[in-house]
Each structure stands twice: as structure tokens, then as C-alpha cells.
């Protein structure tokens, strides 16, 4: 097809004409190539920045939702200290009091395991032991399965949570225990295995006594730099084999004592169920395939669970759907220093969510992308002026030829087409060369400057289209001028 196109008399004509002014054509082509390459490379840099921000934001868990048994809401007061408030259902529901998720991140009241636990937060932590997990546990494994069926849901993991004292040799560490699902590592994008592996589906199905421990726990029990995998630790007087150590994979979150993620241990929820003789879940963690979907999913999950739990219209929910955004600042989705800075500088802290923060970051990077592209577009305009120049030159140089063509029967539109094809041929050739150069430039930038660059097929298509458009736009005026020539005037041109 391309061959047929190239042999079309008009195209053939244009290529021959361009071949006659080889040097000028080459220089114009170079200008166009540089323009297109710059645009493409700048877009790649911008998109790369945008993507890495998106990845970090995702790693911070913005596409996550959590459904908790019971109906109560954490509320943040000016001090930043979390205080539990019972929700609408305070009179009708008995509530589990596990509070680990709303602890401030910066300190851990149980740093010394020998300390008497008389700190208020410590009491609350112990409180959920006393309250017993089953008392208000309204969520079941089947609920989790039902949520998995909703469109837009990516991963679902049910969880049971406990406070636990882990023993190794003479050392003890008081931490959080999470009975969870094998899908958890997919949900926690911010996770990285420092050592070993996560537990497997097989281990989960068999409710085996395997344990994945957080970085902080590993440091406290074994000391830094000591291999934890393969060790046997004791929990609830039961032996557990350590199979992996998790740590944070992103700068947004750093492991810290009391952070409930890396100061924590993980086992299959089936193992928890078996050892503690439980059958319900404390919560279900869900990720949305797209973070823009979170609000919609929250609504749908509410509807679904109300239906499954047979809750009438006038009754309050017996569960709470939390999105990461509503939770993030209070649970330490950010490093403590960042969280404190945000808290110190924003008057109405509770109105600032991580989602807004992310939106701002994304908007900023998008603005940067467009700014870069706009700067690059200037070089495209310069390239376009080059095309205009060579086309005008071509028209002037070939005025007699135009007169001759008109004399032998060319219409003004034939002449117009001839010069437009010439302009577009240069710009498209420049576009192709520019795309190649731009892709190479993006790769070089990525390698030498270590910046993330993303060349998307869309941006390549866009660059090609823009190149063609530049040819048409800047070729239009000279071509039109050529087509408006009077045959006799043109024939008499010197």
C-alpha cells in the first residue's frame, strides 16, 4: 500500500521536487526532526514523572478500602491524637475495641516489653483482647467472596487481628498479629520482602503455623542483620516457623515501631481461626483496580453487605467502610515527619485527605508534562516555519513550472495539492525521524539522568499526527499562494 502511495504521480512529483533541493530539504527535515523529537522526549519525561508519582501514591494504598465489623468512626482532633467515637449505632452495638490502626505512628508505648501496660493506648490494645474478637464480628469469609464478585474489585483479603507477644529465645516483643489472606502482598503494594517469602495458598488452606514478620519485629527479636527466615518463634505458646520478613518498598512509608504494618506479624487467617477457635473476620481489605473507583466501590460494598446482613432501611450498618483516603492521615500513611508537617500547617486537618494530596501531586505533574510539551512545541513551530520557508522557496523557484502546469490543464486545486503534499512529506518524514530520535533521547535520559521516562504509543501517535498537522498548517499558505497564480503571470515569471 505504501508502495502504491509512493508511486502515485503527485507523491512521486513531490518527492522528486524535494530531491532537487537536497540541502534545503535536508535542513528543513532536520529542524522538523528535532522539533518532533523534543516534543516526544519531553512528553516521555513528563509522563514518567507522572507515572512514578502515581506508583508512589498507589504504594501508599490509595486504591484501598477496608470494611470493618462494627460501626464506629475514628475522629482526629486538633492534637492529632486519635480518639474513638461511637457512630450512629452506639446504643445498639457492642463494639470491638482494637485500635491499633489509629495509633499515632511516632512512638510505641510498648517499646519495653517488661513495662506495665498502664498507658491508655496500651490498655485499649489489651482491651480488645478482653472484649474478645467474636463479640461484634459480623463479617464472614462469604462476605469477602461476595465483594470479590463486584466489578472493579482487584484483590480482597479478609483479616483477623490480635495483639500478640512473640517469643524468641529469651526475647519477647509485644506486637500486632494479623491473620490474613495470601492476596495481602498484592494489596500492599508498598511491601517488599526483605527476606524469604509470603505464606502460600497451600499453607493457608492447611492452616499451617507459618509466620511472616515485619522488619521491626525481626530487628527486635533477632537483631539487625541476622537471618530470620527458618527460625522458630513462639506465639500463644505455639511454635511458628518464620518464612519471610516484610519491609517498606517506598519512601512514602518507612517502617516504624507501632506502625501496625512492619511492627506486626502475619499468618494465614485460617491458622488464627484454628488456634483461637474463631470463624468471623474483623475486617476485609479490598483494592480497586482504579483509584478513581474507590468511592463508587465503597457505596456498592455498603449496599451489598446491608443486603447480605439483612439490614432494614431504618437500621444502621453493622459494619464500617473506610477508604484509605479517609484513614490515611490518621493511621500514618505518610512518614511521621510529613504527617506532622501537614498537621502543623493545615488548619482543618480532618478535611485534608491523602487523596487530595495525591490529586494535587498528580495535577502538578500533569501541569509539568504540558509545560514541557508546550516548551517543546515551540521547537515544532520553528520546524514548521522551516517548512513554510522551503515551500515558499519552492513555489517562487518554480513559478514558471506552475504556469506551465496551469497551461496544460492543472486546476488550482491540483497545484495546491502538489505543494501541500511536498510540505506534508517533509513534515511526516521529519516526524518519523523525530520519533526515532525522541525514543532514543528518552532512553538516554532514563539511563544517564535516572529519570523515569515513558514513551506511550499514544504519544508516538500524537507526535506523528502533530507532525502531519504542522506540515498542513505551514504548507497551506505557500500552497495557496501557488494555486492562486495567474497562468500568464506565472509563465512570464523570470
Amino acid at each position, binding site marked *: 500500500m505504501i508502495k502504491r502511495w509512493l508511486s502515485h*504521480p503527485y507523491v512521486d512529483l513531490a518527492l522528486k521536487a524535494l530531491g*532537487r533541493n537536497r540541502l534545503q530539504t535536508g535542513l528543513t527535515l532536520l529542524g522538523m526532526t528535532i522539533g518532533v523529537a523534543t516534543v516526544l522526549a519531553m512528553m516521555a519525561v513528563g509522563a514518567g514523572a507522572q507515572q512514578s508519582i502515581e506508583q508512589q501514591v498507589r504504594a501508599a494504598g490509595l486504591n484501598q478500602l477496608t470494611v470493618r465489623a462494627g460501626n464506629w468512626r475514628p475522629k482526629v482532633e486538633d492534637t492529632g491524637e486519635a480518639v474513638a467515637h461511637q457512630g450512629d449505632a452506639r446504643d445498639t452495638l457492642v463494639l470491638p475495641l482494637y485500635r491499633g490502626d489509629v495509633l499515632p505512628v511516632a512512638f510505641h508505648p510498648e517499646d519495653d516489653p517488661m513495662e506495665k501496660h498502664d498507658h491508655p493506648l496500651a490498655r485499649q490494645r489489651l482491651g480488645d483482647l478482653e472484649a474478645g474478637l467474636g463479640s461484634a464480628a459480623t463479617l464472614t469469609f462469604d462476605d469477602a467472596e461476595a465483594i470479590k464478585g463486584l466489578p472493579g474489585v482487584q484483590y480482597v483479603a479478609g483479616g483477623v487481628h490480635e495483639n500478640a507477644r512473640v517469643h524468641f529465645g529469651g526475647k519477647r516483643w509485644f506486637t500486632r498479629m494479623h491473620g490474613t489472606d495470601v492476596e495481602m502482598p498484592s494489596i500492599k503494594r508498598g511491601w517488599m520482602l526483605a527476606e524469604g517469602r509470603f505464606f502460600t495458598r497451600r499453607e493457608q488452606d492447611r492452616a499451617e503455623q507459618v509466620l511472616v514478620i515485619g522488619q521491626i519485629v525481626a530487628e527486635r527479636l533477632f537483631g539487625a542483620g541476622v537471618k530470620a527466615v527458618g527460625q522458630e518463634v513462639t506465639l500463644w505458646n505455639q511454635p511458628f516457623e518464620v518464612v519471610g520478613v516484610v519491609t517498606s518498598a517506598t519512601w512514602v512509608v518507612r517502617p516504624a515501631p507501632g506502625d501496625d504494618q512492619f511492627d506486626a506479624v502475619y499468618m494465614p487467617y485460617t491458622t488464627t481461626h484454628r488456634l483461637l477457635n474463631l470463624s468471623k473476620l474483623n475486617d476485609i481489605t479490598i483494592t480497586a483496580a482504579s483509584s478513581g473507583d474507590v468511592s463508587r466501590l465503597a457505596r456498592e460494598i455498603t449496599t451489598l453487605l446491608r443486603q447480605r446482613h439483612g439490614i432494614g432501611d431504618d437500621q444502621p450498618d453493622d459494619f464500617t467502610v473506610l477508604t484509605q483516603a479517609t484513614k490515611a492521615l490518621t493511621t500514618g500513611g505518610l512518614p511521621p515527619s510529613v504527617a506532622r508537617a501537614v498537621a502543623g500547617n493545615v488548619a482543618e486537618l480532618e478535611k485534608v485527605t491523602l487523596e487530595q494530596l495525591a490529586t494535587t501531586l498528580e495535577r502538578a505533574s500533569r501541569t509539568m508534562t504540558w509545560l514541557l510539551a508546550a516548551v517543546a512545541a515551540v521547537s515544532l513551530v520553528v520546524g514548521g516555519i522551516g517548512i513554510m520557508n522551503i515551500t515558499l522557496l519552492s513555489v517562487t523557484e518554480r513559478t514558471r513550472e506552475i504556469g506551465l502546469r*496551469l*497551461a*496544460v490543464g492543472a486546476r*488550482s486545486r491540483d497545484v495546491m495539492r502538489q505543494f501541500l503534499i511536498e510540505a506534508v512529506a517533509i513534515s511526516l518524514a521529519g516526524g518519523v525521524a523525530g520519533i526515532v530520535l525522541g525514543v532514543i533521547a528518552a532512553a538516554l535520559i532514563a539511563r544517564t539522568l535516572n529519570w523515569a521516562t515513558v514513551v506511550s504509543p499514544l504519544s508516538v501517535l500524537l507526535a506523528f499526527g502533530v507532525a502531519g498537522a504542522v506540515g498542513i498548517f505551514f504548507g497551506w499558505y505557500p500552497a495557496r499562494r501557488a494555486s492562486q497564480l495567474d*497562468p*500568464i503571470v506565472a509563465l512570464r515569471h523570470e
Partner: protein
Amino acid sequence: MPLLETREVAKEYHVGDHIVHALRGVSLGIDAGEFVTIVGPSGSGKSTFMHILGCLDRPTRGQYLMNGRDVSTLPPDELARVRNEMLGFVFQGFNLLARTSALENVELPLLYTRRGVVKGSERRRKAMAALEAVGLTDRADHHPNQLSGGQQQRVAIARALVADPSVLLADEPTGNLDTATSHEVMEIFARLRRERGLTIVVITHERDIAAYGSRTIDFRDGRVTSDVHHDQALAEPSLR
């Protein structure tokens, strides 16, 4: 009915404040198959008249009929079509495209036929036939700068012939050629008229070149001053 007919055709140019009367009412009929030569002093309006005959220009006043149809008021695209299908032009300066082979030069009018672009192989065949008519098949691949003046003008004649026009218009086709070559070119015109019945109009300054015509028209100051039909015998230069 004459093939070409002008009725009181006038052409005026506005140059600054005053008006130049290039043609002051010319009424002529040219029949199919005539070989007309136009002579006259410089600035007498010969070229202007030929441009109107060739539909390259429109008269200020008067009518121009081809086959009885008034073409002086046609829109530009229609005029282009008439030029393409009915007329062939030969210029004093040859007007060949540089760095383009003789064959491709001859093909040029075929790019603009209204029946759509003629296919490549067909174009080449027709162009070859036209080159053959002027005896230049062996120079088909040569570029203009590799050809003598006479050969270049023959290429130009082939180009004028290629689309099978009924009228051939030539404005001083021998102006840039030496005497011998001029006669060769005129012989070609005479032969084309004889063999194909082409109607031919040639402008010239030289009386002996004008003698090739079956009819000679004199222009002076935008008017026709004499219009002479020669004997058949006079059309043959050897018997002159």
C-alpha cells in the same frame, strides 16, 4: 461554423493611471485544419490574442467561441479543462521541467486529465507515441540540459500533442532557434496538420517562417490589418 471564433475581442490593461489597449476589437474565424501564422511588430497584441485563443486569459470585451460555445465566461476550472482536452501549447522558451526526463515532461498533461489520472504504463505509452511523432524516441531518458534547442522544442511539441488536442498554439516557437532548426520545427507542424488534421496557430516575426501557413494574419496596434489565404502550393516551402 469555424472551430475558433472571436467577436470584437478587446483586451485592456490598467497600468497606473492609463489604460493599455492591447487588442482593440478583433473578429476572426479559424476553421478546423487551418495553419494560421500571425505576424506583426512587437507590442501589436499577437501574444495577447493567442492567450485568449488558448483560454489562458479572458477578453475585457467581446466573445470567444469554440465550436460555437462561448468560453470567454467559463470559470477557471472549466478553462483548465478546455486547455487540457482541446489545446496544446508550444512556447518560445520551451518551458520544459529541468532535471526531468523528456518522457516525463511529455507525460505532464496526462496528470491533469479530467477522466482521472492516466495510469503510469498508459502515460508512458502515450508519451512515447508523441515523442515518436517528433522523432525523438531515442532521447526519451535525456534531461532538457542534455538536449539541443531544436530537440527541446520537439519535446515541447510532443508534450503539446500527447493529450490529443485539436488545436496547437505556438508563440514564436522558433524564436530561440537557428534558421535550419526553425525550418525543421515548422516542417513538423506542417506534417502534423497534414497527417492529423490539426488546427495550428503560430506567431512569428519572420516572413519565411510565416510562409508555412495556409493563412497569414497581420497584427498592428491591436487590430488585424491583413488576413491572407495562400495557395495550397505556398504552404509547401520547397515550391515557394
